[in-house]
């Protein structure tokens, strides 16, 4: 420990003496999709450091979205709050509630935050706000989207991507081959992805999923969520067009690439990964609807932890505003497949050229007109896990009913939310 800090101090000294008086800040970022992303992010950090001499950003790769939350909190608790963290967009709410991150007005200086947020798509704004203040700046955002193998579609005689749940089931049945030789549809059901997709199905089923105004309420036992749970489980047990049990996102993409799955639901953030690996004609489409077209926002935003110095805050803002500029955010979108949350990025000539060549990159942007915020409550991960456990049980156990599962999910989530609800909505003055 001593040795490490001594070496660290020595290195810091050397760097500090070479770059005169640069403010060093840490930038923690996850890369949930693939390793390529973390390398590109380090490149961007380097580019920023080279572009000016006032701030030096140290990029720290932190794994998945959930791990990034844990690591940045641990750093903050250890007295080294990270100045910039790329955080799962739905965690800003609870981090703000727990008083761990600062509102962006403390960083922004002269920048007009209201005007800046106007440049972002309306759908990404709710997750960035809490209690009327901006707590995060969106950077990479996504929606779930349907990828499909056009060759399989032609072979099965299907003309168009399914638009409704009925068409979706019908297509999956036509595409699937018996005994799991080929699956009609696959969706990731590992933790995190699972809750996001249950929310997507619930929204497409006309539901709310959670209360976006008050983070102490969840609607797992409502008809729309019950219908979503039933619809997903039926793919596996009733129609037998999806493997039973839990499949993670790696399994889903691998099955798609090897032709074992004809349709898959993944984040639009996986688009460039699919573009590079699918050796067949594929396309992407909206998530099919039952009651309405609607999807939750996913992805990550930039937040800043409490307890940094004013100089660090200033440095953090110069990095945040550089990284979320229309030009950089557009570059990142083209590289990854995430859509650019800043609308103005689509006005730039490189972006116009890119979407003309890759029209599939526009599907998520078109879907944004129907998108809503991502589940963000008190203790989001525990609340999310309550429904994820039940969805996993439904996919594994054909005997379990969606009603029992929904009721249990509600019960467990309510238990998690109880302390917050009692302090707020249930408290009698």
């Amino acid at each position, binding site marked *: 420990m001593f040795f490490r800090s001594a070496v660290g101090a020595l290195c810091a000294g050397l760097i500090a003496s070479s770059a005169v008086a640069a403010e060093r800040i840490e930038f923690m970022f996850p890369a949930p999709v693939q390793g390529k992303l973390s390398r590109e992010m380090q490149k961007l950090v380097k580019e920023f450091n080279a572009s000016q001499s006032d701030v030096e950003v140290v990029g720290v790769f932190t794994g998945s979205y959930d791990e990034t939350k844990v690591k940045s909190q641990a750093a903050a608790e250890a007295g080294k709050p990270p100045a910039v963290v790329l955080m799962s967009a739905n965690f800003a709410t609870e981090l703000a509630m727990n008083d761990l991150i600062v509102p962006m007005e403390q960083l922004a200086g002269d920048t007009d935050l209201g005007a800046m947020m106007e440049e972002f798509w309306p759908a990404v704004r709710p997750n960035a706000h809490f209690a009327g203040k901006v707590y995060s700046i969106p950077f990479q955002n996504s929606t779930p989207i349907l990828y499909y193998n056009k060759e399989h579609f032609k072979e099965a005689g299907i003309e168009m991507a399914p638009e409704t749940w009925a068409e979706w089931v019908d297509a999956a049945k036509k595409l699937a081959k018996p005994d799991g030789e080929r699956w009609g549809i696959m969706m990731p059901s590992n933790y995190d992805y699972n809750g996001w997709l249950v929310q997507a199905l619930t929204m497409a089923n006309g539901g709310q999923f959670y209360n976006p105004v008050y983070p102490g309420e969840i609607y797992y036992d409502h008809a729309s969520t019950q219908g979503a749970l039933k619809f997903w489980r039926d793919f596996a047990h009733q129609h037998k067009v999806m493997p039973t049990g839990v499949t993670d996102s790696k399994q889903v993409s691998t099955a798609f690439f090897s032709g074992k799955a004809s349709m898959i639901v993944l984040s639009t953030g996986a688009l460039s990964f699919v573009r590079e690996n699918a050796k067949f004609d594929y396309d992407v489409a909206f998530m099919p609807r039952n009651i309405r077209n609607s999807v939750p926002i996913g992805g990550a935003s930039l937040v800043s932890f409490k307890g940094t110095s004013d100089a660090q805050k200033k440095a953090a803002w110069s990095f945040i505003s550089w990284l979320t500029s229309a030009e950089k955010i557009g570059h990142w979108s083209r590289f990854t497949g995430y859509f650019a949350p800043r609308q103005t990025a689509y006005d730039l000539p490189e972006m116009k050229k890119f979407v003309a060549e890759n029209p599939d990159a526009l599907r998520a942007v078109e879907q944004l007109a129907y998108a809503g915020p991502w589940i963000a409550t008190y203790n989001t991960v*525990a609340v999310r896990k309550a429904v994820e456990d*039940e969805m996993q049980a439904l996919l*594994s156990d054909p005997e379990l009913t969606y009603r029992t599962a929904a009721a249990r999910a509600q019960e467990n989530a309510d238990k998690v939310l109880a302390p917050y609800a009692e302090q707020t909505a249930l408290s009698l003055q």
Partner: protein
Amino acid sequence: MDTPSATKTFRKIRLQPYLLLLPAFLCLTTFTYWPMLQVFLASLTNKKRVGDDGSFVGAENYLTIFTEADFLGALWNNAFYAAGTVIPSVLLGFLFALALRETTNLSAILRSALFFPTLVPLVGAAAIFIFVFMPDIGLLDYYLAKLGLSATNWLGNPDLALVSLMALTTWKNAGYYMLFFLAGLQGVPQDAEEAAKIEGANWLQRLYFVIVPMLGPTFAFVVVIALISAVSQVDHVIVMTEGGPNNATNLLLYYIYQQAHEFYDLGKATAATVVTLAALLTLSFLSLRTMERKVHYET
């Protein structure tokens, strides 16, 4: 004989061992006993996060976890996991050592091959085994398909996921335990075995009456480290299943991690830690005691 110099020597001798023990004692107190005490004290509060003070709630956290399905599930999973990894990996390690006892060129190669999984970090092994266990396209199903068996969702089926993790652990640890048994076998005196041979004992009898009792200390040691590893390793759970499907692979350590860092309940997490520690201590103590009775120590 009560001269001043004799008293002085006497004092010196009495003080010296304590002085020699002091550094170790200080280290243990600072880095082991003190933190353990802190953990115990935290388990009696309703602390939410590090840095949060919380207030004293007595045994409430213990009552909560022992009535909670998730904790009891993790406890049961871990007991099953321990039994299902300790027994096969220790037995396999012993069998490997027996088979490769004589040093020949071939045995050296085989020993290295069996030891190799130990060198792979658990996270790396887990990342590789995700693909080995992948239904239909994975290596395991590829070979099972040749035997006419259909695709199996190894990590996605609650009945198979924990068994799959156990298989990975056994694969990884057996070679490591083999090393201890190989070393132990070196210590079995040739004359004892030869005497048994002359008495007409066959191979099995020699194994049962001579080799196994002589290896008692090795067995006791290996079983204890295997037990500890069954409770302290969590990397593969994080990489492969995150405790799923539906908590089927949620082991104690992962439960503790989630409670402490994801669900903001440090009180519950520390209570679970104390229970885990107590269980480990008891198990280690019992296995050392029972094995020691059957142990033959060289004097």
